[in-house]
């Protein structure tokens, strides 16, 4: 492709986030992921005649928490509306959402030093889940579909950014920061893979900042931050290529196919007027009070940006490490509890254990922090043992694996397996003398060799000594003692 024009992408994101309430938005059925099909359904969420919705107070509270976190304006009044369309995953044949009067307006979020505007956030109910049967599970080729209404009526906040985003990387940064905020304020578990956070992207290109926006295309079905970035980059390339060849971009919705690494057009969308929005007559307006807003403000936890800054300053850690701590649910709390329990050890070692061994363990086992055997005090113990020289990093790894498997205390594991690092000069000296005696050739080559050869032989001897100490020799001490013997 010969690019004559440097196209500038204009990107806006719509993030649908399932709220972590106990019950659905308008009825008292459980809001639970993974329940057996159609076990959390009632007359309201099935749209049976005569049933009436009643708003979940916590969904309002959660919206107000987001308002405080991202400086949204909270209008005096917001109103629910019916969005009318026929689709089997909506048993009522309309979705209750907010249209002209959303609960939140005009927020902002800082993404790596750039302020991204948020147009609005509104409450709405989620749809049921349909599985397409036959034809490889694709909706177009399916013979029929099966519908589970457990998710129908689950509360969603749809958060709509302004078209302020300029690259795939910035889009990822935006979603990542929004996710951290939603997690920190406790309103959602924001798992893209489980669909509790879903992102659609609107993308258009223009030749310069001064130009009007081009025709935008909406892309859907990205189920990870990685696929969001790839889908946006792909769509930017597709549009640029089309514009280069003089094609017109059609306003449409395209579906991201992760395996094929491309987007494809979906059925043409009904226009907004075709949804025939009108105020939901069964629900009255939401008018948050000053007391409600004050209560939320007082209970708001520390936000991710502030927390990262504080941890970087207090512990001298890097921004990427601080991000990991804050982004993994519960990890920063765990690390802070461990640091508070330290008896002489370093926060740095706690953070290394958390972002290294512990995170790898969580990823491998799929466990959450609440479900692991090693508590923060145990991890602090381990960091103390590193700090006082009892354990080298590689020994600490071994002890960690033992402790996290069955909850035994690090000190007990060290004693039981005899894993303590050997820092006894006499003992290490004896080991080195034996290694040198057994490898007289290598020692001779060391003395005769150039710098490169010397380095190689020295490394070999050090490895032999470490082996002879069963990995428990204190590396610094061994190094020092070896140097003395090679003079």
């Amino acid at each position, binding site marked *: 492709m010969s690019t004559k024009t440097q196209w500038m992408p204009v990107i806006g994101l719509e993030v649908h986030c399932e709220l972590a309430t106990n019950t659905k938005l308008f009825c008292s059925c459980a809001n639970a992921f993974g329940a057996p099909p159609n076990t959390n359904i009632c*007359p309201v969420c099935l749209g049976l005649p005569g049933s009436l919705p009643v*708003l979940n*107070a916590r969904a309002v509270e959660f919206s107000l928490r987001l308002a405080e976190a991202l400086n949204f304006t909270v209008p005096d009044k917001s*109103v629910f509306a019916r969005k009318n369309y*026929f689709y089997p995953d909506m048993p009522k044949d309309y979705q209750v959402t907010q249209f002209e009067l959303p609960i939140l307006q005009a927020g902002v979020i800082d993404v790596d030093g750039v302020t991204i505007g948020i147009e609005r956030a509104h409450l709405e109910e989620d749809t049921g889940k349909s599985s397409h049967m036959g034809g490889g599970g694709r909706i177009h080729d399916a013979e029929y579909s099966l519908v589970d209404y457990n998710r129908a009526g689950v509360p969603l906040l749809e958060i709509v950014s302004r078209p302020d985003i300029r690259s795939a990387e910035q889009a990822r940064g935006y979603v990542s920061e929004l996710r951290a905020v939603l997690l920190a304020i406790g309103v959602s578990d924001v798992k893209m893979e489980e669909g509790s956070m879903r992102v659609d992207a609107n993308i258009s290109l223009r030749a310069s900042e001064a130009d009007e926006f081009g025709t935008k295309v909406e892309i859907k079905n990205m189920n990870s931050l990685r696929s969001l970035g790839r889908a946006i980059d792909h769509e930017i390339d597709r549009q640029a290529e089309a514009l280069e060849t003089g094609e017109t971009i059609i306003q449409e919705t395209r579906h991201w196919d992760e395996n094929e690494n491309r987007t494809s057009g979906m059925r043409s969308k009904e226009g907004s007027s075709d949804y025939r929005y009108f105020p939901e007559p069964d*629900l*009255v307006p939401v008018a948050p009070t000053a007391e409600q807003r004050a209560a939320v403000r007082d209970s708001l936890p520390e936000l991710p940006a502030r927390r990262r800054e504080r941890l970087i300053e207090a512990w001298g850690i890097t921004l990427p490490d601080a991000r990991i701590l804050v982004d993994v649910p519960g990890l920063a709390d765990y690390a802070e509890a461990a640091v508070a329990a330290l008896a002489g050890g370093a926060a740095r070692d706690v953070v290394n254990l958390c972002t290294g061994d512990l995170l790898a363990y969580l990823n491998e086992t799929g466990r959450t922090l609440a479900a692991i055997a090693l508590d923060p005090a145990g991890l602090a113990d381990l960091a103390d043992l590193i700090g006082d020289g009892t354990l080298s990093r590689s020994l600490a790894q071994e002890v960690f694996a033992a402790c996290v498997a069955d909850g035994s205390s690090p000190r007990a594991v060290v004693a039981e397996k005899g894993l303590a690092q050997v820092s006894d000069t006499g003992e290490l000296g004896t080991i080195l003398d034996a290694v040198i005696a057994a490898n007289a050739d290598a020692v001779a080559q060391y003395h005769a060799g150039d710098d490169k050869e010397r380095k190689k032989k020295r490394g070999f001897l050090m490895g032999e000594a470490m082996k002879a100490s069963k990995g428990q020799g204190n590396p610094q001490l061994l190094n020092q003692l070896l140097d003395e013997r090679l003079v």
Partner: protein
Amino acid sequence: MADENPTAITRAEVEHVAGLARLGLSADEVDRLTHELAGILIHARDMGELDLSGVEPTSHPLPLVNVVRPDEISPSLDRDEVLAAAPAVQDNQFRVPRILEAP
């Protein structure tokens, strides 16, 4: 436009809206509804000519706000009983005809 009145509605628009609402209307019904809906739209236009700048739009007839319930779980319906009322069931789910026409 089928009517010289600017707020009137065309037969095609009535048929489009009927299609969105999944209503099968006879030609006579389309005629009648085009006429009746035009009357409603003209009435709305008349109201639009009034100065209503100080009047808040009504979204609900009752002067109520913030009707909410606590976030507490109540038992759901018995699944078998619900599914017994469905036209078709498979694997404890509602079985529905294909959703989209083949492209």
